[in-house]
């Protein structure tokens, strides 16, 4: 935390004027909106909502938007930490947020390896439905925790 605050990135943002932090914060929220907005659609479909829509149709739209949003949020998040990293030492919400993001990513990788995910036909077996629903439910839970813990960092 001290290291990232002392980095050239932190120096550059701190020297960029009174609106710099606000603008980076705005980009971070835009990334989260793209990520979470598309994940809600995907996760609810995995949970069984609108099952008449083929899974591949839903994933072909949501996965690229979610991935783009994640990259934007992660990069801007590193920038935010670099401005005043030392302030977050002892803040319990930051490790909760990081852990929730790690779990969400592990869950996403596990989901993408399910045979039910890779199967292209639109008819899902009962077992496949259950696996997809568990993955979708965990995804919704982990991303929600990440967002809530992230927001609470500023109120500790």
């Amino acid at each position: 935390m001290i290291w990232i605050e002392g980095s050239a990135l932190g120096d550059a943002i701190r020297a960029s004027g009174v609106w710099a932090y606000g603008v980076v914060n705005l980009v971070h929220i835009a990334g989260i909106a793209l990520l979470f907005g598309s994940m809600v659609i995907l996760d609810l479909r995995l949970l069984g909502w609108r099952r008449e829509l083929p899974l591949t149709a839903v994933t072909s739209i949501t996965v690229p938007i979610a991935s783009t949003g994640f990259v934007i949020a992660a990069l801007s998040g590193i920038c935010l930490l670099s401005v005043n990293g030392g302030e977050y030492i002892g803040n319990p919400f930051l490790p909760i947020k990081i852990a929730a993001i790690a779990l969400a990513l592990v869950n996403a990788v596990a989901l993408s390896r399910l045979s039910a995910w890779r199967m292209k036909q639109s008819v899902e077996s009962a077992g496949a439905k259950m696996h997809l629903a568990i993955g979708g439910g965990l995804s919704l839970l982990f991303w929600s925790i990440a967002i809530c813990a992230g927001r609470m960092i500023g109120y500790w």
Partner: protein
Amino acid sequence: MKGLHTIFTAIVLSLVASIAAAHHGWNGNGEEQFELTGIVEAPVSLSGPHATMKIRVGEQLWDITLAPPARTERAGLQEATIPVGAKVTISGHRNSDPKRFEVKTERVTYNGKLYNVYPDRE
């Protein structure tokens, strides 16, 4: 599946509601007005979510949290306005945790001039 869907929707909604309830920037601070007079050790910094400075009162170094950078600047407080070593008086609300020496500050007085970064909080 319908049940699962309902449960997770409920979790998301309750988490969102908890954020809305907690969204108050002055919650972690004492009710009563808190004043300090000390010597500036780290000058005003207009970066980060809030402008900051550090002042020393006796042995204790205090973290002075000001308004957001743009607002602090509009109140007339620039990074170079108050030099290190200057004597200032601040008024605001102390962090409710007695172990933390931090004051969320509304007003700074330096050299007879008042910088009111939260003029709506009288």
